[in-house]
Structure formats: structure tokens, C-alpha cells
């Protein structure tokens, strides 16, 4: 269970690293060259988001706010993403994976934002911003997927 600010930030950071690695792997593979530009941009953005959220946490945290008690317990199992490309999916299947990843990470960020809104407003705002971007990324991937159908 993710019940503290520290745990949330750590989980989120690992998630962004994992997703960035996924897009970098896609971008390196000739099979998915049609999406290379998008994948590289997404990977870069994942790192930027992670940096922004970590920075927000570190710069607004004080001993006086409710970092230990602000989150209704989020179950990390609900937000695990599959980034394995071992089976060499087709471009369409890789896009489906990416859409699922964006969807789960969007839900994670949106839920963190909602549950921290009352007490950790800056962190809530940062996650809301990232969630918003993730929703847009999902739209971009869906457009790409529809083009390839």
C-alpha cells in the first residue's frame, strides 16, 4: 500500500523510469520506426515529469504538513505496467501496450492528485498537471494506432 508521500514519490519515480525505458526501447527498434519521434519525445517527457514532481515534493515538504497522512491508501498493484518487449510485438500491439501504460499511469497520477488535494496542494497540483499530459499522450497514441489499423 502506498500510504506516505515518500512512498508515493518513490513509486512514481520508478514508474516514470520504467515507462521512459519502454519508449526508448521502442525508439531503438527499426520495427517501430514510424513512431520513433513520438517515443523519444515521450521518454524525454517522462524524465521531465519525474524531475518536476520530485522537485515539487522536495521544495514544499515541511515537517508541519501531513505527508504521512494525506493519501487514502493506494494499492500499487493497481498501477503496475507491463513494459516487456521480449515477445517482439507488432507495431500495433506495441501501441496497445503504450496506450495501456499511459492509461494506468494517468489513473495513478489522477488518484494521487485527488487524494492529496486537501492537505498537500502543491503535490496534488503537480500530479494533476502530469495526469493531464498523460491523458493527451494517450490520445496521441490512439490516433497513431488508428492510422495503422
Amino acid at each position: 500500500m502506498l500510504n506516505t508521500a515518500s512512498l508515493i514519490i518513490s513509486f512514481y519515480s520508478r514508474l516514470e523510469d520504467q515507462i521512459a525505458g519502454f519508449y526508448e526501447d521502442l525508439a531503438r527498434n527499426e520495427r517501430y520506426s514510424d513512431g520513433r519521434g513520438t517515443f523519444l519525445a515521450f521518454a524525454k517527457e517522462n524524465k521531465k515529469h519525474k524531475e518536476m514532481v520530485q522537485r515539487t515534493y522536495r521544495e514544499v515538504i515541511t515537517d508541519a504538513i501531513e505527508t504521512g497522512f494525506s493519501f487514502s491508501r493506494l494499492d500499487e498493484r493497481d498501477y503496475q505496467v507491463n513494459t516487456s518487449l521480449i515477445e517482439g510485438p507488432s507495431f500495433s500491439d506495441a501501441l496497445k501496450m503504450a496506450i495501456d501504460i499511459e492509461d494506468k499511469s494517468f489513473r495513478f497520477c489522477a488518484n494521487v492528485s485527488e487524494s492529496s488535494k486537501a492537505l498537500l496542494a502543491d503535490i496534488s497540483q503537480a500530479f494533476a498537471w502530469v495526469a493531464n499530459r498523460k491523458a493527451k499522450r494517450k490520445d496521441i497514441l490512439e490516433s497513431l494506432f488508428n492510422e495503422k489499423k
Partner: protein
Amino acid sequence: MVLLEEPIKEVQTLRNYINGEWVEPESDEFKDVVNPATMKVIAKVPISNAEDVRKAVEAAQESFPGWRRTTPLARARYFFRLKEHLEENFEEISRVGVMEHGKTIDESRGETRRGIENAEVAMGIPSLMMGYNLEDIARGIDEYVIRQPLGVFACIAPFNFPFMVPLWFMPCAVATGNTYIIKPSPWTPLSQTKLFELIDEVGFPPGVINMVHGDVEVVNALLKHPDVRGVSFVGSTRVGREIIYKEAASQGKRVQAQCGAKNFIVVMPDAVVDRTVASLMSSFYGNTGQRCLSGANLVIVGEDESFYHSFVKKVAETASNIRIGYGLDESIQMGPLQAVVRKKRVLRYIEKGLEEGAKLTLDGREFKLVGGYPKNCFLGPSIFEDVTTDMVIAREEIFGPVMSVIRAKDLGQAIEMINGSSYGNQAAIFTSSGRAYRQFQYEVQCGNIGINIGIAAPMAFFPFSGMKDSFFGDLHGQGRDAINFFTERKVVIVRWF
């Protein structure tokens, strides 16, 4: 359970930092520093003596004239560099804080951030230190005020915020041109040691900032030394009033003694319950109740039985689910008390509450500990109901995770209770009513007021206020008070013939 990596791998033998060098103490007495979660010894701290203090004061006194003449801009730039070093070492400092004190990693990072913020404020000293003037106070005559540093200042630090508290004072003192000596708590000297490693790397001129580890002898020597011009203290009321304030003031030193507390948190029937409960957890149980702004007495206002019972039930349920363990496990919400002696003190108060007839709704003596750590310093959250303001548990500072629930028929009675306390550090109200808020902040005799805030801890640019038995002196730490405390205001009247 995954632990964050411990930054302290082996037992360190600490030294003093005097005149820009790490030096062995004159005394050969050392005290073990123990990680209260694991009960492992993590350092040995010297219990220095008066001779060590003499050397530190001499170094600080000698460096004062040169440091004073260093321009405020140049002095501020040292703090820019220190801030950079602090940011780079943010995580290590925070984890050291967990190891020496027992607090959770979130709490420790919060403490580190607050410390850094004080260094940031000191960067603005060229503006903050400005005087003021008025021309033509009489025809052709002008008058102005300049601020000047005084000399050597000292900080006597507590165990509960070992990294942050010295930074409430030192950056402002040094940036205004004074020189400084810090005496960390011998219970928690490691984060200060880390700070001084960074001070050394920054390269402050020798003697400008010094550290002497130790205990009572060091305190007494600092208080009695004629070249120490002022003392900042954070600790108990007994020591602050009877020793620090009296001794320092009798010698003509400036003194600010921020002392104990018994903080009331008032919940009105119109409070937003879920948010209030989360905030109360942090207020009463954050830092394991070991802070002078901790909630201690929870006053529930009104005669609505159903509100009272449902609210207390929710508080008790939430408190009973707090995860207790080693603060380097990120899922932990409450760490151990800082030492066995502190746990014993809290246990005595729990016994006292029972003797006095209060109802122990949640018994912190029974709790689930995450991880297989020794229970020596751990204690769960406790809640007493049926508490009245004449009981010892409602009057004395427990300094642990104990909540005493008191009922008041209306806000006026709640405010009477607060103002009847000998302490005046913090009070908070949870309400949706602007009228109640205004009455509260207007009438309550406390230095720090929270409105829907459980820990009203002033930021670095505001004074950390406190009244009655919670503060002795007139100028508080932080904010404009600190600038006044660390500078002499000299008035100049000018006429040219």
C-alpha cells in the same frame, strides 16, 4: 519492507569544529549516540569541557573583526554556496536525521527543507540588514539608524529537530556579521556534524562558525563567558527559564529561550471532518509527539453527543492504523521516541492519566511494530478521553504521542482553557466559520495560531513566536525579530558646518 540505504555505516567518533578545523576535545569523555529504532550505537560524541568552549569563543572573537568588515553581499554569498551544498546533500542529511532521531523519512526531509529555508533567508541580508533615515530632523540635520553586529553568539540546540533548530539562528547571526558557536544536543549530534562538513567545504573563514559538542558544562561555559554576547536556546521551560534566561540575562547577554508547550487543538462542530482528522494525526503523532508545536489537548466543542462520539471514534480508528517502525521504511508513519528515557517519561504520564481517572480509549502501550526491531523506544499513539484541564496530563508537557480529549460547551470555554494554561506556544482551531476563526485568533494567548492547520510552524521569514512559559526573551527566532536580535541599532545624527 524495503529500507532506504543507511548513510551511516560504521560508528563515528565525533570531534569539535573550532577555528576552521576538526579538533579533538580537551575532555576524554564520550557518550554513545544510539539509533532509537535499531538500538545500535552509530557514533560517539565528545562531552567537551569549559576549555573547549574557551577555545571556540577565542576563535570566534578573533575572527569577528574581519568577518564584520566582510561586505554583507560577500557574507550572503557564503550562504548561497552553503545552500547549494545543502541541496546536494539533502537526502543524506535527511537520512542521518532519521538514524539519530527516529523520525520518519518524510518528517526528516521536511526538517531539512526548513533548515535550508533559513539559509535562503540569510541570502537576503544586504536588504534585510538595512537601516533607515530621515533628513531634516532639524534644519540641516539628518538622522539615521545603522545596524551593526555584536560579536560572538551561541546556540544551545535541542534533540528533537537537531538539524533545523541551529539553522533558525546561525545563518541570520553570521550573515549580519556576527560569529557563531553551536552546541548540538549530545543525543542527536550527527546532522549538525554533517552540516559542519559542508560549512568546511564552503570555506567560511576560520572561527566564523564553530561547533562544540557536549552537555551541561558546555552550556554553563557559554553562558558565563564574557565574550559571548547572546544565546539562542530551544528546550524545556525549566532549563530555559531557570538556567538559560536567568544566567544569560544576569550577565547582560541577549537571550531568546524558546521553551516547552502544551498545545490545544480546538475542533468545532462545523469542522471538515476527514481533513481535520488527517491533520490531527500529523499534529499529535508527527515526530512521535516530540515537538513544541505538537497537539497535546484536543478540545471538542459543543454538546452534540453524536458528533463527539463519531469524531473521537474516527480519530481513534485512524490513530490505531498508524504504521509504526523504522523511519527509513518509507511506509512508516510514526517512528520511535528518541531514547528509552523519553519513552519512560511518556509511560509515566500514561500511568498518571489512568490514576487521575481519564479513560484510555487507545492504549499506545499495545501496538504493532513493523519490522523486527527492538521495542525499547517505540510506543503507539494513545488517546485519553474524559480529561479535564486540572489533570496533570492536560497541564504538563508529555512530549510524546499522547492525545488528551477535553470537551467544551462552546468556543468561549475552549479559549478560557487555552488561556488558563501556563504555556502559550501554539493553538489551532478547525472550523468552517469565519466568526469562530476571528474570535480565536483575536482572543487566544499563544504565539503561533493555526486555522485548520495542526502544526502552525512559522516559515523562516516569520518569527517563531511563543508566549508565557513557552518563551523567555523579547525577540524570537527567525524573521525580522532575528535581524533585530543579532544586530545593534545605532543612531547617528549628522550636521555639517
